[in-house]
């Protein structure tokens, strides 16, 4: 079974990571390096165990474009998210033994080094992926 692990952050978090003071504490360069090293090991462990299908980080929310409809017309807008709104920041797709194992993998993210204020509220979602239309209605 495949599962998607999703992590979230706000534009403020992205700004903080980039070293800007934005109402949440700015990261120091060594904080960022520690996180990078942690993620590298985290991902390598998953490759090693054969459970990683794919992982990506998403660029800052401010860089987002939204495509939608308004009064029947297609519309493209920039930056739909409020500064403080948490949106998808990255994801992992893992293929593993069970929901419990996927949760265990995601729980490993709790050890990500980051400034205390960021760690205190961090969370991730684990969602089963469906393999076909049947499962979607199932």
């Amino acid at each position, binding site marked *: 079974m495949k599962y998607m692990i999703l992590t979230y952050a706000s534009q403020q978090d992205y700004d903080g990571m980039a070293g800007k003071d934005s109402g949440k504490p700015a990261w120091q360069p060594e904080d960022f390096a520690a996180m990078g090293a942690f993620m590298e090991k985290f991902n390598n462990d998953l490759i090693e165990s054969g459970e990683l299908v794919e992982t990506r980080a998403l660029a800052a929310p401010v860089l987002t474009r939204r495509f939608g409809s308004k009064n029947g017309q297609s519309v493209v807008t920039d930056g739909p998210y409020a500064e403080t709104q948490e949106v998808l920041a990255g994801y992992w797709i893992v293929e593993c033994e069970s*929901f419990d194992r996927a949760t265990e993998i995601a729980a490993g993210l709790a050890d990500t080094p980051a400034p205390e204020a960021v760690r205190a509220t961090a969370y991730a979602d684990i969602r089963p992926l469906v393999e076909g239309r049947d499962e979607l209605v199932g």
Partner: protein
Amino acid sequence: MTSALEDQLRELAPRVLGALVRRYGHFDTAEDAVQEALLAAAQQWPTDGVPESPRGWLITVASRRLTDLLRREQSRQRREERVARWALQGEPVADTDDTLVLLFMCCHPALSPASQIALTLRAVGGLTTTEIARAFLVPEATMTRRITRAKTAVREDGSRFTLPADREERLGAVLHVVYLIFNEGYTTTTGPSLQRVELAAEAIRLARLLHRLLPDDPEVSGLLALLLLTDARRPARTGPHGELVPMAEQDRARWIPELIKEGVDLITATLPHGPIGPYQLQAAIAAVHDESPSAEETDWPQIVALYEVLLQLTDNPMIALNHVVAVAMSRGPAEGLALLDSLENDDRIAKDHRVPAVRAHLLEMSGDRAAARTAYEQAASRTTSLPQQRYLHTRASRL
């Protein structure tokens, strides 16, 4: 519902539940969802036909139901608590059969044996709450409460879909639960009929399942052999009016030879590989009985020897009582009666009807008819099973 369909659903139940819990978690809710899917199958398949992939059908219906139930049930608060529990644990998930994991979950050490049995019968046996309540002669509402409490206890303990770390210890509980289910089916503790065949059959099915999953465990093999060898005597255990027929008076031609052969082969193959455990020893004793052409020709000294090994392994007063009987058969009633005196002081069994029943038999063997009669009547007054009462009164009135 035909029995073929019933068998098929029972076989599928733990696999469907396993698939659901493995994919989505939520043991307690998934279990309800599977029960509802099984009921839907029992209603729809006889008219619409069995779907091409019965397991896939059940998983789809159960998943749909699980979604409904979860949406209804979950408060945000509870979800957060659950997440908090997760991050703290970290043993790896073993590659293993879902059914086995389910069995271990149901035999959770936080549950009483009664709850372990109820949960096992529901989650792994696929029996409905109504059926389990009927089998244990308790009101359905009581059984519903017991099962609900059991599921909550498993959930609150943060049980996960993986074989537990205390696997060896918990296997003991699993075997014990199967053994208790069989005993309840074989000699019901209360009520009008002596046997509830469906429970005994379910226990044998579970033991076979366990044996298939853990073929190298000698106690698992021992338990399966014990159940087969005991069940082999079932047709001869009751007379035409449902009365109990003791082993010495049973028509051995009515014992089931296929079960005896299977049980004997199994225990013969298992014993040399050890380590020896109580189920293997009890199976070996049952095999000696089953292979004996008559009660008189039974190899009693061998049975005494096996009981003595068994008594070193387990401090069980019922086994001590059986040992007394074997000693009396092997060395005469006087030695049996002397041994029985020591059991009279064992609080765990002193008030049980079996002690005066054995005393009555031994007194009768030694020719003390008056004392035997008193003991039979005392035994009858202590049992709640009607067939056993009838049997004991009949013995008393013969003297």
